[in-house]
C-alpha cells in the first residue's frame, strides 16, 4: 500500500461507481446523477495532481514560496460551470421525454418504441 496513491485510488472507485450507475440504472435522472458523480471524480483527479506538498493556494503573497499548480484549477473551474449548463440541457431532454412517453425509465421507453415498430 502506497499512501501517495490513496487519493487517485479513491477517485477511481468514485469514478467507477458513477459509471456503474450510468450503465446499470434505467432511470434517466439516476443516470444523470451517476454522470455528475463521474464528473466530480474526474475534477478531483485533476485537482489531486495539482497539489504540491507544503504548497498554498495559488494567490501571490509575500512570505510564500511554494504554490500549488494553478493550471488544473483553471481548467476545472470552467468545466464545473459548463457541466451544470450541459446537465440542464440533459434534464430538459428528460422533461420532454416524460412528456412524450409518460415515464423516465429507459427500459420502458425502449419497450414502447419496440411496440410501435
Amino acid at each position, binding site marked *: 500500500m502506497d499512501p501517495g496513491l490513496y487519493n487517485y485510488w479513491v477517485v477511481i472507485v468514485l469514478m467507477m461507481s458513477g459509471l456503474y450507475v450510468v450503465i446499470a440504472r434505467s432511470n434517466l435522472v439516476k443516470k444523470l446523477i451517476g454522470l455528475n458523480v463521474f464528473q466530480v471524480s474526474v475534477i478531483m483527479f485533476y485537482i489531486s495532481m495539482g*497539489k504540491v506538498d507544503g504548497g498554498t493556494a495559488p494567490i501571490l503573497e509575500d512570505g510564500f514560496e511554494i504554490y500549488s499548480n494553478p493550471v488544473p484549477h483553471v481548467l476545472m473551474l470552467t468545466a464545473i460551470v459548463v457541466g451544470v449548463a450541459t446537465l440542464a440541457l440533459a434534464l430538459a431532454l428528460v422533461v420532454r421525454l416524460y412528456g412524450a412517453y409518460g415515464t423516465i425509465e429507459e427500459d420502458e421507453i425502449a419497450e414502447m418504441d419496440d411496440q410501435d415498430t
Partner: protein
Amino acid sequence: MINLGLIDVVLLAFLVAITWAIIQLRDLFAAVMLTGIFSLISACLFMVMDAVDVAFTEAAVGAGISTVLMLRTLALTSGRSNPRFNRLELAPLLVVIAIGAALVYGTFDMPRYGDPQAPIHTYMAPRFIEQSGDEVGIPNIVTSVLGSYRSYDTFGETTVVFTAVIGVFLLLSDPRRGRRAGDALRDDIILRIGTKALVPFIMVFALYVQFHGDYGPGGGFQAGVIFAAAIVLYTLVFGLARAEKIFRRRRLELLVAGGVLLYGTVGVVSMALGGNFLDYSVLAHDPVHGQHLGILLIELGVGITVAAVMVSLFFLFVRRRQV
C-alpha cells in the same frame, strides 16, 4: 513520508459512502439531496487541496443550482425509480471492475500525491507562478491564467454555456399560455422575512466576488452563479410572477448574449489596436494596466452571461407546466 492529512482520508471516505447510498436508493428525491451533499463535501476537499477557486465554484454550482434544477425535473416527472430496474446488474459490474483495475494499474506509474517534481509542475506552471506577477500584475494566478494566458479557452467555455441555454430554451419554452406553475412559499413568514434580509447581502457578496476576483478567490464564473442563487432564492419564496417583473424574459435574453458579446468585443478591440485577439496589453498605455482592464472586462462579460444563463435555466424549468 507522504503528507496525507486525516481530513483528506475522512472526506474521501464520506464521498464513497454517499455514492454507494446513491446507487442503492430508489427514492430519487433522496438521491438528488445526496448529490448536493456530495458536491459540498467535494468543495471541502478542493479547499484542502489548495484549489480555492474550484471549491468556490463547486459549492455554488453543485450544491446550489444543479440541485435545484434536478429537484424541479423530479417535480415535472416522477419521483421514484422503478424497482424492477434497480437490482444488481452483473455485466455492468464486471465492466466497471475491469476498467477500474486497469486505471489502478495505470496509477503505479504516476508521480506520488504532492510530489513537487512531478512533470505537471515542471512545465508551464512555474512560468505562470514566477512571471504572472510582473506580466499581468494581479495576485490571483488562477485569474491571470483564466483571463489572460488562457483567455481563448475561457471564451470557448462561455460560448458553450451560452449554447446550452439556447438548447434548453428550444426544448422547454412552451408557446401555449396557461396557469403559471411553481407555487410560491409566500405564506411562510420566517422564510419570507429571512429571504428579504438575505437577498441583498447575497447580491452584494456576488459583486464583491466578481470585482475582487483579481486579488482573492473568485471571478466571473463564481459571481455569476452566486448572483443567480439570490434570484433563485427570491423566486422560490415569492413566486415566478414577482421575480419576472424585474427579470423579464427579453432582458435576460439580452444579458445572456450581451456577456459573450462583451467578451468578444474586448478581443476585437485589442485586434483593432494592433495586438492579437484577446491580447490586452495594447488596451492601455502601460501593458500591465491593459491586462488589468482586459481581465476586468472579460470577467464582467463572463459574470453577466453566467448569471443570466443560470437564472434563465431556472425560469425555463419553473415556467414549464406539469404534463
